[in-house]
């Protein structure tokens, strides 16, 4: 049924980090809120709800997008990935990207980190050789108030090399 009423919740089905997930949402509810409050995936952060800060960035069908600018009902049938999906599901080991962020002090408060990790994860999946310019271009879609970006770029370069099988030291 294509028409959803403002006053009733609709069933929305999507895959979240590889698992079939169902949520109930009114049309006005944002994907960021449904992920956090209804599904319990609180790793996705909400900063501005204007699309500017990038904290809420998740992968929708493999590409980074703002969860705060997506209505939850628009996620019907989509494949979603959030920061919860990055670490190894079995033993909880950090992904190379997460590990590099920790090693290179690329986060302080960590508020911006989840969104940045998702954008970089997609960047390296699409282009394993992404250079510093491409990394900075990707980061232009994110605001970090703590680290001044230099450690983030360093961590991203280190992660790229580690993912490709190189060394971790930048």
């Amino acid at each position, binding site marked *: 049924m*294509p*028409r*959803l*009423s*403002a*006053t009733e919740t*609709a069933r929305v089905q999507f895959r979240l980090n590889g698992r079939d997930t169902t949520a109930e949402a*009114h*049309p*006005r*509810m*944002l994907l960021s*809120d449904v992920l956090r409050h209804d599904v319990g995936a609180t790793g996705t952060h909400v900063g501005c*709800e*204007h*699309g500017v800060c*990038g904290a809420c*960035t998740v992968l*929708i069908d493999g*590409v*980074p*997008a*703002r969860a*705060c*600018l*997506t*209505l939850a*009902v*628009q996620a*019907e049938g989509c494949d979603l990935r959030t920061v919860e999906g990055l670490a190894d599901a079995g033993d909880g080991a950090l992904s190379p990207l997460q590990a590099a962020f920790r090693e290179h002090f690329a986060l302080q408060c960590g508020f911006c980190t989840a969104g940045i990790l998702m*954008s970089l994860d997609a960047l390296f999946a699409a282009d394993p050789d992404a250079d510093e310019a491409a990394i900075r*271009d*990707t980061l*232009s*879609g994110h605001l970090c108030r703590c680290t001044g970006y230099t450690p983030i770029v360093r961590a991203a370069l280190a992660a790229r090399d580690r993912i490709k099988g190189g060394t971790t030291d930048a």
Partner: protein
Amino acid sequence: MKPASFDFVAARDMAEALAALREGGDAARVIAGGQSLVPMLNMRLATPATLVDISRIEELRRIESANGAVTIGAAVRQAELAAWPDLAVTLPLIHAALPWVGHMQTRSRGTVCGSVAHADPSAELPLCLLVLGGTVILRRHRRTREVPAEEFFLGMMSTDVAPGEMIAALSLPQARPGEGHAFAEVARRHGDFAIVSCAAKAGADGAVTLGVGGVADTPRLLELAADAAADPATRDDQLNEFAWSLGARDDLHATARYRRELVRRLGRKTIEEALSCRA
């Protein structure tokens, strides 16, 4: 901040979308990528009764080139157009401008037609549409009309789209042999809206169309005849007069004087580039 309530129509085809828009009239609104509309909903600057989601309508997801023009459907995302293999050759101006439209995280959902419908005075795609002399294809229940870009933008965020109507596609003329194109912009940070943006098209005969965004309420054009474009003194005179005619104002981001200077300098740069890259 959160959106107020609205009904949501996930249109599966044009018939459903047009019926919902007709029924909803003034209180219905199209949602495509949501990259400009959802911020407005979140701030409650927009409180539509019905949102009609057109992003999954298969017939609107197409990019087609035929008879010297490229047609871009209303559900084509900015990132999809950027990845279209023919883009650099058929629409070199759009190819140059797209990386300046927001960030890859917004281009992934924002549509080309949505940007034109939103008509932000600083937006790159409305400017390119105007410089290329493209056409907006509008549809409503049982009626289609085509509006040339010069008549489409009425003012700041205001267009010729009527209630019950939607943009079905844009039609853009393909680059012809001998033409040259250039785009340049100054923004606070790459991906932010432009303080001033310039797009230029040079014809094979050396005449130039220059468009400027970010200064007036809509993108605006300066037409330079071939001899005027080729002569630096005449060109600079016309650019200066054009810069003054745009009614630049001081705001938080830049002074009027700085904007005029950018029009002169970026204008000169894009005119020269467009002339020199003629194939």
